[in-house]
């Protein structure tokens, strides 16, 4: 019973990404959308925590929201995959439930 976790606020604004990282379990997926995409930046304050989590769960970032903020795919921390809205739908369908960390 794995879960897709969505985070939509910048980790510099709210603690939702940190809380999410504290709660995910093996086999879950995390998708960063809206302002949360800034947390995926290579060399950023959350890059290490995110790459550490990749041992147990997969991490994704919503590409259109990344592009809207002028962040290029090559500026994203290693191992984080880009998905579009169709990929978001596939992730939601592929896990047993979706948990939005609002």
């Amino acid at each position, binding site marked *: 019973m794995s879960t897709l976790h*969505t985070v*939509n606020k910048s980790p510099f604004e709210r603690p939702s990404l940190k809380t999410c990282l504290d709660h995910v379990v093996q086999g879950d997926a995390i998708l960063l*959308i*809206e*302002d949360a995409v800034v947390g995926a930046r290579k060399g950023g304050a959350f890059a290490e925590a995110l790459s550490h989590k990749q041992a147990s769960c997969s991490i994704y970032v919503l590409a*259109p*929201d990344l592009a809207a903020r002028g962040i290029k795919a090559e500026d994203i921390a290693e191992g984080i995959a880009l998905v*579009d*809205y*169709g990929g*978001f*739908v*596939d992730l*939601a*369908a592929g896990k047993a*439930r*979706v948990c*939005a960390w*609002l």
Partner: protein
Amino acid sequence: MRFGIVVTEGPYTHQASDSAYRFTKAALEKGHEIFRVFFYNDGVNNATRFAVPPQDDRNLQVLWSELAEKHKLDLVVCIAAAPRRGILDADEAKRQGKDGNNIAPGFLISGLGQLIEAGIQSDRLVMFGD
């Protein structure tokens, strides 16, 4: 697969309504079913037909109405959240003694039970908010 969508933020606030709209559209394009889109708290502000954004901006209320018409979507607005924010349909306007209503085409004012039902009937409930 059957999806239920919850929107708890108004349009043009941050991005929740845009995200919910684009997710809903992508799910429909992939052949999934949308059981219901439930607008709760400030999300009810998506349901006014009187919104007039600048011409070069997207009109989210119209986009939702058009999507609802095209795909026969059930767009439900919470009755506890809507009247206090000035979102009224004809029945509510009459009941509250107001001189008009502003609900957009495709939206229906109903109770929180509709959200519970969406949670039970949908395979996945996806929430967008602030």
